[in-house]
């Protein structure tokens, strides 16, 4: 399992949440809601089922929070729990279909590799989020505009951030360099390098 077992951010968040810090809990949900959501989406659950699965997963996590043996393996725990609850929801839905309505759609199968990809993406996204947080506000604003959808022109960026068009390119390069050197991305780099060296250790 290529989880970032030594990720101090997750460990700190879990520890704070165990000790009644609601902000830490909110941050945990904010970070990993996309993981829970994306797995539900892979199983093509209906909105009502996604709502149920989400509630169950987060309630179980609240219960388990103080008992997680490896807080840093939280993404893996969330993925496994979400997957189990999705399968439960699908089984219930299939029983309904059998008893009446027609549905020839084949059952949704999500393989372990797909789940693994979602976990890796969630860890990468969380690291990027932390990395952005390490940057000065001016860099955060510039990068936010550079990745906005729809894309902003340099003229717009210049007008909004009050910086000359000519300095956007160099500033962009500087901010990305700082991002690359952030502690959060350095940790992620180390973690991914370990995974590639071990050749996907833990994957069946």
């Amino acid at each position, binding site marked *: 399992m290529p989880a970032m077992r030594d990720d101090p951010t997750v460990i700190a968040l879990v520890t704070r949440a165990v000790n009644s810090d609601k902000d830490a809990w909110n941050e945990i949900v904010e970070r990993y809601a996309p993981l829970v*959501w994306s797995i539900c989406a892979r199983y093509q659950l209906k909105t009502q089922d996604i709502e149920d699965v989400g*509630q169950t997963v*987060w*309630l179980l996590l609240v219960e388990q929070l103080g008992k997680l043996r490896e807080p840093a393996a939280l993404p893996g725990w969330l993925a496994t729990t979400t997957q189990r609850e999705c399968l439960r929801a699908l089984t219930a839905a299939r029983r309904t279909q059998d008893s009446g309505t027609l549905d020839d759609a084949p059952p949704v199968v999500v393989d372990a590799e797909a789940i693994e990809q979602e976990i890796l993406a969630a860890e990468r996204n969380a690291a*990027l989020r932390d990395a952005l947080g390490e940057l000065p506000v001016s860099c955060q604003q510039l*990068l936010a505009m550079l990745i906005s959808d729809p894309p902003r022109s340099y003229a717009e960026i210049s007008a909004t951030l009050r910086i000359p068009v000519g300095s956007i390119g160099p500033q962009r390069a500087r901010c*990305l360099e700082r991002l690359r050197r952030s502690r959060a991305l350095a940790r992620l780099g180390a973690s991914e390098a370990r995974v590639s060296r071990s050749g996907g250790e833990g994957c069946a």
Partner: protein
Amino acid sequence: MREDWEDERLLDALRESQRARQDVPPWFTQAGQGAYAWHDIAAQLARLTYDSDHDQELEGVMRSAGMRSEAASIRALTFTSARLSIELEVTADSLVGQIIPPRQGTVEQQAMSGETAIVPIDEIGCFYLQPVPTGSFRLRCKTGDGVDVVTNWFVV
């Protein structure tokens, strides 16, 4: 995220992480954050394990004394936790429940709005909620012997 990441790839990764966050509707995240209300509460989760709207194979499930065979047309639900189950039947004017194994206690009906109502559980484990709750709600059962469970949110 290797050292040799080009600027464009790094920006793409940032875009991707933003998109992943934006895919998640705010209600989904807010509901998850709301689950923290259960932190430090001894209640165990009782999950929905049977719903007559979903499950047609009633045999062996309608085991509570109050549920006769003609109840098949009545909505029935069962929530199960390690230490007790909650069986529910929706009638015209009330939600009738029984906890298994039977014992006295209280049931708190909680609406998503935060409104709550508490009713007693009698000595044979039965309780009555009138009128039938509307909208999403959940039930928290506390028994005299210290069992404390809460159901998922559900609608009847």
